[in-house]
């Protein structure tokens, strides 16, 4: 609560004196001191509205006892409250009766049956029989209001949680109350579905079975579910979730309220991605190449083959790519395998589309998500958070709307936060340094922005606005921001566990625990445990791919890496894997990259693995295992352990927890961190490991060194979309159907010059490919730039070069 102070007051609840925070809502204060007041509309993460009236209590006033809703009543010192008086009990029974008179009696076929607050409270507080003999309200039974959500208005008790969420939290009010009085109902507008990235939250917070999610409908009964707490590995926010299975399949993921991160909310991608786990395309046996195709192999055959082939190359001619999608333990095992068993320094978890690893790992002062709650000014100079980190988008949105922070958005095109931004700067990709210079100097139109940035605390969220953006720009922005009052910086990283992977040393420049690979002290400390490390300096992903293409490198181990899709230069990635003598892939699916491998090992995935992960704040949390992976798939580290053994080395990874203990012993920044800490008590919120003293100083790029490069032709803004053609999304049917149609957005002025109009098909030519895309005229885009959604099947071949050319197609025929 924004208006909550730290002081404590005394109130009396049902005759017992309690000490509670001043200004807290009575319903919450009562719950925290052990008195549960029933409720339907109140939700701790939304503004109280006092609509359902279930939480009525009696509060003593100078004019006698006042019946009032405890969700709208802030406590004050000396308040005397009765939550179970005769008047209260009768009122609550009356409310329940009112709610039930129009509620259908279809609990046995309702998804909510068994976990339904209305059902529970009817048992606890409700009348025994109905005195209502009139006909109940009727509506058409469940109607789809989006591709993911169905609405049964007969079951709805009009608590408005869903509509308030959409308006207040996610900022896309596509469902609202319609009609009034007894005819009131929740509904979307005709032909405008509830197409929100956050729609699943409304299903979760619905206190009855009015809103149901297609991926879960009729899949299970609540009492059949098995569940573990975990964190979502869809993106680097690491939202806390409850993973729930029935009959050995994950059937539902619900948000869990972790105050510092997701506060209970999830994106629909977090929520429904689980379908990929049970995709028939999932790899279930090892595969080995036989000519142009794969044949299934036994683990023994595949391991023997891989170990034998890898051992034929000098370590320095082998590289490893990937590791940013799994756990820290897996990343640690991957790095240890590469550095001590293969003995190569060529390691990268990023795909040439990220930020500099030293920058990400050593960033200081680093902002936490919670800092947004106190921020006066937020500078967002990164990708569109709504597309890239949707839950962080919710937190920024809340800061800008509810908490009054000044929001500055700098981006080449509209973003999901523009409507709540106080300032928006649109610039042509390549001209970022000019914008930054002007901003730092407070020149002209930037004077007001510069002034706002002097009002701290300032939180800067920095990253590449598009895949082609120079990563040094984010560092230059950070170099400016870190001297602002109360500054904190948060890097926008793409893959879910990039920070964990870098912290585990999956970078040519880093050793586990945020240590520099060049630091003699760090090297010798690690060598005491691991033995000698490779001497030579390693190459990053682009260097590795070039090395493979040019023959300087001959083999590569891909761990959950798909450079053909993810590297900005798909031509290079394809040539590299094509040319390599030997490619091993550990993966869940055959991707464009693992399809080029010689041996493919099926590994276990989210919900099948246990370990730790590190989010973009540096917060370490636990992911937990609920199920075994399909078929013969194995834990990734055990595959490496087997390979190492066959190559005459020892990985020392009999269990994931063994790896965790080794991390705690050898990775300086993770010293002493145990799973126990994360599983219990305060650690359940995650632990942000303190930055060790004597940590490396960052080499920020000075503003004037990051020079603007204005490319010829049209600058390409290649931006991420939430439902892109990544393999997990593609394998989750509920999400795959939501993948946007490809298009190229063109500024009206450029469209005029090119002579193209809305909907016309044009030829977009990059150095990698030429593709035909329909035009969308977009006045929010910087002039001189085109926007292409990255990584859709149709757009992926373009890669992410600085610029493209756009040509009206011959004949101008439209489909």
């Amino acid at each position: 609560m924004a208006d909550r102070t730290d002081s404590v007051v005394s109130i009396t609840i049902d005759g017992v004196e309690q000490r509670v925070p001043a200004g807290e809502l009575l319903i919450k204060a009562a719950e925290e001191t052990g008195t549960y007041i029933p409720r339907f509309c109140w939700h701790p993460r939304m503004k109280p509205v006092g609509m359902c009236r279930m939480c009525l209590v009696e509060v003593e006033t100078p004019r006698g006892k006042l019946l009032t809703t405890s969700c709208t009543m802030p406590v004050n010192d000396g308040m005397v409250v009765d939550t179970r008086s005769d008047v209260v009990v009768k009122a609550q029974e009356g409310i329940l009766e009112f709610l039930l008179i129009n509620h259908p009696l279809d609990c046995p076929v309702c998804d909510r049956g068994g976990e339904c607050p209305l059902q529970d409270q009817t048992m606890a507080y409700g009348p025994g029989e109905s005195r209502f003999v009139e006909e109940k309200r009727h509506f058409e039974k469940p109607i789809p209001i989006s591709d993911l959500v169905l609405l049964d208005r007969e079951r709805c008790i009009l608590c408005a949680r869903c509509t308030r969420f959409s308006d207040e939290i996610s900022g896309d009010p596509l469902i609202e109350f319609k009609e009034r009085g007894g005819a009131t109902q929740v509904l979307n507008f005709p032909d405008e579905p509830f197409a929100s990235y956050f729609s699943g939250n409304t299903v979760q917070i619905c206190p009855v079975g009015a809103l149901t999610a297609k991926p879960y409908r009729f899949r299970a009964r609540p009492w059949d579910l098995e569940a573990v707490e975990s964190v979502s590995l869809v993106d680097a926010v690491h939202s806390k979730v409850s993973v729930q299975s029935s009959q050995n399949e994950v059937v539902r993921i619900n948000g869990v309220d972790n105050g510092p991160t997701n506060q209970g909310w999830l994106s629909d991608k977090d929520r429904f991605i689980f379908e990929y786990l049970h995709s028939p395309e999932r790899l279930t046996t090892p595969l080995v190449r036989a000519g142009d195709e794969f044949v299934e192999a036994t683990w023994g055959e595949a391991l023997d083959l891989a170990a034998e082939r890898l051992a034929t190359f000098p370590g320095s001619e082998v590289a490893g790519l990937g590791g940013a999608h799994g756990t820290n333990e897996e990343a640690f095992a991957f790095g240890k395998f590469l550095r001590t068993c293969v003995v190569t320094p060529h390691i990268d978890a990023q795909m040439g589309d990220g930020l500099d690893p030293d920058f990400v790992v050593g960033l200081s002062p680093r902002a936490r998500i919670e800092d947004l709650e106190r921020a006066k000014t937020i500078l967002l100079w990164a990708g569109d958070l709504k597309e890239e980190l949707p839950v962080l988008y919710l937190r920024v949105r809340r800061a800008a709307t509810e908490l009054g922070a000044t929001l500055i958005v700098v981006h080449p095109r509209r973003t999901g936060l523009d409507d709540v931004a106080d300032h928006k700067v649109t610039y042509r990709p390549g001209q970022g340094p000019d914008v930054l210079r002007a901003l730092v100097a407070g020149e002209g139109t930037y004077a007001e922005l510069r002034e706002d940035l002097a009002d701290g605390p300032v939180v800067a969220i920095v990253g590449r606005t598009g895949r082609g953006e120079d990563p040094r720009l984010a560092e230059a922005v950070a170099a400016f921001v870190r001297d602002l009052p109360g500054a904190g910086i948060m890097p926008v990283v793409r893959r879910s566990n990039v920070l964990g992977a870098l912290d585990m040393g999956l970078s040519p420049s880093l050793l586990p625990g945020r240590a520099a690979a060049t630091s003699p002290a760090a090297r010798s400390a690690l060598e005491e445990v691991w033995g000698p490390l490779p001497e030579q300096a390693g190459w990053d992903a682009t260097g590795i791919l070039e090395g493979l293409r040019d023959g300087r490198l001959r083999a590569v181990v891909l761990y959950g890496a798909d450079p053909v899709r993810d590297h900005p230069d798909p031509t290079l990635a394809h040539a590299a894997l094509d040319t390599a003598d030997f490619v091993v892939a550990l993966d869940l699916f055959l991707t464009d990259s693992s399809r080029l491998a010689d041996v493919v090992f099926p590994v276990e995935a989210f919900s099948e693995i246990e370990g730790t992960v590190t989010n973009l704040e540096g917060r370490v949390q636990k992911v937990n295992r609920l199920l075994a992976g399909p078929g013969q798939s194995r834990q990734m580290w055990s595959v490496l352990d087997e390979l190492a053994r066959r190559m005459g080395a020892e990985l020392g990874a009999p269990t994931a927890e063994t790896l965790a203990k080794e991390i705690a012993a050898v990775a300086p920044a993770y010293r002493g961190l145990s799973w126990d800490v994360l599983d219990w008590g305060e650690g359940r919120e995650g632990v942000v490991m303190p930055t060790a003293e004597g940590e490396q100083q960052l080499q920020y790029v000075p503003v004037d060194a990051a020079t603007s490069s204005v490319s010829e032709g049209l600058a390409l803004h290649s931006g991420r979309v939430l439902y892109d053609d990544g393999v997990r999304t593609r394998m989750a049917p509920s999400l795959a159907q939501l993948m946007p149609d490809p298009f190229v957005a063109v500024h009206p002025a450029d469209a005029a010059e090119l002579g193209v109009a809305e909907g016309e098909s044009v030829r977009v030519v990059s150095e990698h490919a030429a593709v035909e895309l329909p035009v969308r005229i977009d006045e929010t885009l910087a002039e001189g730039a085109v926007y292409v959604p990255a990584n859709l099947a149709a757009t992926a071949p373009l890669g992410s070069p600085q610029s493209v050319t756009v040509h009206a197609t011959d004949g101008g025929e439209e489909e």
Partner: protein
Amino acid sequence: MTERTVDQIVPGWTAPNRERAATLLAAYPERRSAVMPLLYLASLEHGYVSDDAQREVADLTGLTSAQVQSVASFYTMYKRDPVGRYLVSVCTSISCYLLGADDVLDAVEEATGIPDGESSEDGLFSVEHVECIGACGGAPAVQVNYELVEGVEPDKAILMCNWLRTARPEVVSSDEMQSLFGGQRSFDWGPAEQEGAVAAVPAFGPYGSAGEA
């Protein structure tokens, strides 16, 4: 970013209504406040508050269509189905009820041939019973396109409907109808007015009324 102008958003509206929309959008400290008057304007443009009308108001105010629908459906005077040229509203609240309003409603249904809540196929009439319209001293009271007639006895109600059918007045005016069909008034109305309604939308300058539209 450039905000689209009223002319760009609703190019199909009449010039005076586009001007009114721009004035209304500027009349309030916050744009959203213009939703209600804009719904009346859109209703004049479309004949009723159609889905298209709601979409246009959403575009004009920066709301979602669902938000506009939420507002439009709350208020009874925004007709979301096509409405007749003459909307006859019979007050059946307590004071009018005590003085025979139900008989007036019966008479209107009979004279127009359509039941309460419906519209005639020829688009001439819509009939509805309404809650109190603030004419209790002149009960029973009726409105045609929100123009009031007080002291309307059932036989006069029939005559009035027949007159609407045959005379087809372009402008519906309280004073004219009161002089022809009215009786007891809540109070002395004073001199007759020129203004009147041209559609089932309250005739009020900022939304257009007779002689202005």
